[in-house]
């Protein structure tokens, strides 16, 4: 079972959430406690997973709506929970989908900051998505690329900039601006002239002015 209490600064509400989560899981266990056969044990495990997913989604909702230091406190616990998760890819997907559904600039950044703390999973997901023909939600593609590019700088040019998804190239442009000018400037110049998206050409031009 995943723990949500990796943070000493958790609030009363968070403890209540944890308590009620335990209650639901224990209720599920009690509900099936008279059985011993394998099929019911499977049902028990499934109930626990559903409860776990429910509380994870609820925690993500709280985190994505929080701002500033409150958000930072929640991030510590969530990042630890994600890192220990046995279904990491599904959990990353839940974070991305929830943040994309909110469509808020603050929530997008919160999701990027959370996913950037993951050591594994996020980079592989971004590489796969960059070359998939299926068009993901634009915000999902952007968050995924931003988080992955912050984890592994070499994929900015080698993967993200080559993607046919505009939002992934958009993330790559933002990430380029944080590289050394010698490395970033020639690439931004090329994007400013050649990218098929007018918005990305304009953004690259804006960022180039920082190197003047």
């Amino acid at each position, binding site marked *: 079972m995943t723990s949500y209490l990796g943070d000493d600064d958790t609030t009363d509400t968070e403890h209540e959430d944890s308590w009620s989560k335990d209650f639901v899981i224990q209720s599920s266990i009690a509900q099936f406690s008279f059985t011993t056969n394998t099929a019911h044990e499977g049902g028990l495990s499934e109930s626990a997973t559903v409860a776990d997913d429910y509380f994870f989604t609820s925690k993500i909702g709280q985190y994505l709506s*929080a701002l*500033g*230091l409150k*958000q930072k406190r929640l991030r510590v616990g969530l990042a630890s929970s994600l890192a220990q998760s046995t279904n990491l890819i599904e959990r990353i997907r839940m974070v991305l989908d929830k943040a994309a559904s909110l*469509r808020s600039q603050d929530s997008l950044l919160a999701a990027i900051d959370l996913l950037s703390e993951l050591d594994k999973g996020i980079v592989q997901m971004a590489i796969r998505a960059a070359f998939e023909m299926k068009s993901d939600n634009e915000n999902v593609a952007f968050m995924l690329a931003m988080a992955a590019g912050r984890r592994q700088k070499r994929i900015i040019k080698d993967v993200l900039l080559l993607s046919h998804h505009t939002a992934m190239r*958009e993330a790559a442009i*933002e990430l380029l601006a944080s590289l050394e000018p010698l490395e970033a400037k020639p690439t931004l110049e090329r994007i400013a002239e050649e990218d098929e998206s007018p*918005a990305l050409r304009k953004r690259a031009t804006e960022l180039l002015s920082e190197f003047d």
Partner: protein
Amino acid sequence: MASPSNGAEPLTIRGTLGVASGSVFVRRVTRPAIWHDATRASECLYEPDGRVSVWRVGNDQDLRRVVIAINESRESFRERIDFLPILPEELAAASVVCIQTRGETKCPAAAQLHYDAQIGDGNRKRLLETLLAARRQLGRCTSGQMGKAAEQSEQDGCFAVVENPVSCNCGETFEASC
């Protein structure tokens, strides 16, 4: 501790935000490129509950406090920030009401500069039209500028930057803020 950022221009309302000095609201933007896409630009002003987090900046010192407060919750004080500047009269023209709410920061001076702008579908469209008509550009704080701002705030004794603060140049003392 921030690393040296000697070459960076200091943060100013005129230079950083591209608007004349004076009071201005700023909205942090995560996807600056969408501001260049007329079909997506309104997303910069969207929140599902209609309460859009903005900061009111009256002078260059306010601007520094606000950017430090924003990056206090991030991985590093040097993270770059993009802003949509909005003038008070532009909010008023779009009938957007701003309610002062305490910002989530250890800097008491910055916390008082935070507002929730009440923006729904109707006034968002009006506000967007006003900003596009004014050819509003996004402002941005580069990583170097952020590093320099963090150094200055550290020298001031800012509660958001210093680990065990006693007093800050803004006039706050640790006891007073607790």
